[in-house]
């Protein structure tokens, strides 16, 4: 069983919601990554999403755009992202790593070369924002063949007729974009998310993660009541950008631990 499936099996048998933090590789710096990843793993990340910096992050709000720009100022490239994963894997054999980014850096490396290198670095899943399933059949196949999960987005505008088609290609989990907008936006409607998750679950057996717009313990708990996993990105990056480079790991870890605690207390309540 791959690490993502194993993680969800463990989390679900414990009656918990998985916590998936997102950070951009190279923000605040490449040198800071080992400590940052360790800090968020210790703080309770079940899976870690790593953003691959791109010059034109069209689906991202200003916070993740800035993270991408800071990384690109240091010339952080896809091969550096893979090196960060490789390094992390030497120390952590269990926490799944999912890469999230845009198509062009992968195409520039070559899809097959990328799939090979990602597999040997220890990547568990790949989400390419601008590869909808229609354009990603071959790519998903390359990933499958190497035991990497292709992760796809579902959105509030995805018609029910399409959900099954998306799910057919997906492995690991599906990522429900909780609002119409970019990452980090602030108009999350929990009741709407709950309704949509019910629709999705009629067609999808995989765990459903929810992201875009989760900003604090309250929104995390509200979504966690319905989702198998919650994804938090922009809010952690705000912690990182407000910290001095030396303190980024500790500050991100501290903030995430607060969310973990909020989720766990809720889950204890649910169990009791």
């Amino acid at each position: 069983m791959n690490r993502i499936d194993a993680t969800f099996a463990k989390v679900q048998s414990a009656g918990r919601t998985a916590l998936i933090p997102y950070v951009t590789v190279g923000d605040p710096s490449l040198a800071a990554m080992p400590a940052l990843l360790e800090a968020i793993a210790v703080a309770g990340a079940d899976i870690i999403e790593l953003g691959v910096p791109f010059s034109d992050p069209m689906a991202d709000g200003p916070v993740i755009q800035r993270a991408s720009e800071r990384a690109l100022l240091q010339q952080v490239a896809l091969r550096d992202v893979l090196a960060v994963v490789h390094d992390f894997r030497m120390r952590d054999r269990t926490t799944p790593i999912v890469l999230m980014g845009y198509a062009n850096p992968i195409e520039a490396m070559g899809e097959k070369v990328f799939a090979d290198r990602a597999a040997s670095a220890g990547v568990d899943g790949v989400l390419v924002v601008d590869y909808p399933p229609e354009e990603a059949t071959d790519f998903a196949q390359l990933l499958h063949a190497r035991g990497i999960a292709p992760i796809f987005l579902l959105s509030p505008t995805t018609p029910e007729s399409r959900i099954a088609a998306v799910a057919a290609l997906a492995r690991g989990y599906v990522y429900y974009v909780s609002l119409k907008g970019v990452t980090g936006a602030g108009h999350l409607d929990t009741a709407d998310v709950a309704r949509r998750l019910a629709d999705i679950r009629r067609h999808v057996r995989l765990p459903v993660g929810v992201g875009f717009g989760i900003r604090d313990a309250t929104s995390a708990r509200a979504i966690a009541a319905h989702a198998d996993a919650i994804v938090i990105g922009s809010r952690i990056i705000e912690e990182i950008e407000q910290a001095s480079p030396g303190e980024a790991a500790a500050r991100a870890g501290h903030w995430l631990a607060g969310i973990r605690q909020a989720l766990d207390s809720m889950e204890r309540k649910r169990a009791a």
Partner: protein
Amino acid sequence: MRMADLPGAYDLPDERGHFGQYGGVFVAETLIRALDELKTQYARYRDDTDFRDEFEYELKHYVGRPSPVYHAKRWSQELGGAQIWLKREDLNHTGAHKINNCIGQALLACRLGKKRVIAETGAGQHGVAAATVAARFGMECVVYMGTEDVKRQAQNVFRMKLLGASVVPVTSGSKTLKDALNEAMRDWVTNVESTFYIIGSVAGPHPYPMMVRDFQSVIGRECLVQMPEAAGRQPDYVIACVGGGSNAMGIFFPYLMRDAVKLVGVEAAGEGIATGKHAASLTAGRPGVLHGNRTYLLQNDDGQILETHSVSAGLDYPGVGPEHAWLKDSGRAEYVTITDQEALAAFHDCCRIEGIIPALESAHALAHAMKLAPTLPRDAIMLVNLSGRGDKDMNTVAERAGLQFYCRPECDPSRR
């Protein structure tokens, strides 16, 4: 490959928007439904008589079409070779070809019941055209424009504001057209239910490259009729500048199946291809994915999109419409480059010899015609798409020329 070698008629793109390996729909999931809806509705209205009649009515009475073809006799004579004919898109309402497409998309937006339109703009011509149709059809309009372009195209910013649009300066990335497009996409993803995104070029995800081409192909269809009437036959060459490539696709498309007509797209070589300061994606780029489609892109080895340079803001874009990528690979069209300096020289010649102030974008096509004309016999015919007028470029040209304008000898007071 020649079109004659293709099986059947030219029928690209395919159902999913592919021109060979190019084009497609490379967007985040949230936009898929809107694009599917647009595809379905456009397929419905494309052949709808009422829609076509209304489009043609607006083009005639509001835009001022057909735009004439004009024989640049003095210039042709001075160059001593082929005859240069100009397709006068500069005479359109708002001063460029951009309005053709905006009318088409605005009519579609009305039928889809969208009350709000957004647009990206580089030189500001598409922004002005979008703001114009928004005023004409009573829609809210937001135009995204890089802060660099806001600075160099201040007059167009003012025009858009006069027309009631709000202009949002974009400060991310290179602060030019590509970043304006990113920001417009972000707006669209957020307001997808209420908003129609009027893309200004034959770029973006399917069906935009096809749809914009169809709306712009009025340019070439008119030429097909006008050239035999005015020049006695179809041209040997059709020449147009290529940034995103909408004016070029518009004039090329009706000529694609006519193999005898050579199609030449002119990209911006900026300060020279070797300097890296240019915007020639077909000439110096590699295929990749940006802004919803696969096409030639200016990018570094890591797949990051490069900042571009051109004296003309409208050509300052690191990608190009996917159909041009296909036409290049297939050999049906040829793509060449012209530097800032060559374009400026052509700009001044066109003002001085023909009394026409061209847009700096169009001046690239004129500059290539100037190079080519002397190498061809006098009975050869070149048709150049004069895609826009140069009023918007006064500041840029004045700065470059150090305010040293040409003075006709007989007007020079010191010579009297």
